[in-house]
């Protein structure tokens, strides 16, 4: 990616930066909470800032563009949290408005996941329940079910593969 930017000087930096929108969005949503309505604005600010830094020559390609964007993203998240902490001292946060289309898609995927989970043999459901719902470690699940940690991983991976297959359809 870095090479691509160095070699093709005529290509606008926006193209390279925009490829990272999904990964930046993921990181921002994870940090801010996916129901936080500000996440999209924060992502756009990061992208704009990154393009400006590349255009001004501040990014010289010493690190990969991924690492450069990771740094900008992390700093912006910290700034956002600091700002919000200051604001929250004075006023309560308004309730977020979830996107109805996203909500519908999410509900549909939840239904698909539920269908697969309900069709699983109890030994697979047990592992999912203890590992993801009760949030026990792999070793704790192994001790609880009297199986090896490796067997726990195998069961989790098998169940997840079935779920992923159903959700991808």
């Amino acid at each position: 990616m870095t090479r691509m930017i160095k070699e093709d000087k005529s290509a606008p930096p926006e193209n390279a930066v925009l490829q990272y929108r999904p990964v930046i969005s993921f990181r921002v949503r994870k940090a801010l909470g996916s129901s936080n309505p500000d996440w999209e604005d924060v992502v756009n600010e990061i992208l704009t800032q990154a393009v400006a830094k590349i255009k001004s020559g501040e990014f010289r390609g010493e690190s990969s563009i991924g690492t450069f964007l990771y740094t900008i993203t992390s700093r912006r998240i910290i700034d956002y949290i600091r700002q919000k902490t200051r604001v929250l001292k004075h006023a309560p946060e308004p309730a977020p408005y979830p996107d109805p289309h996203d909500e519908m898609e999410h509900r549909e995927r939840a239904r698909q996941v539920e269908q697969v989970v309900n069709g699983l043999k109890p030994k697979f459901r047990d592992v999912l329940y203890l590992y993801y719902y009760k949030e026990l470690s792999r070793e704790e699940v192994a001790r609880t079910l009297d199986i090896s940690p490796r067997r726990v991983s195998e069961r989790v991976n098998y169940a997840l593969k079935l779920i992923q297959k159903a959700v991808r359809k």
Partner: protein
Amino acid sequence: MKKHCHYEHLIDGYLLDKLKPEDEAEFEEHYFICPHCFAQLDEKSEIVQILKKEGVLENPGNACEHDHARPSRWRRLLARLRR
């Protein structure tokens, strides 16, 4: 795209907020440059969220037989031998 990456084992821990802060930061930096890990992470993220929050696994009566069923004779014997 690589088939396996040695950071892959951190995906579950990251999604369940179980990583140590230094591992979390390292993995975050990593998935910005690893399309393989990011694809896995992105796909697993919503599924894990559903499994955690949507009540799919909420009913231990249906979901977790180990709470209720007595272990088999062999399991009990093995457990005793391990003590």
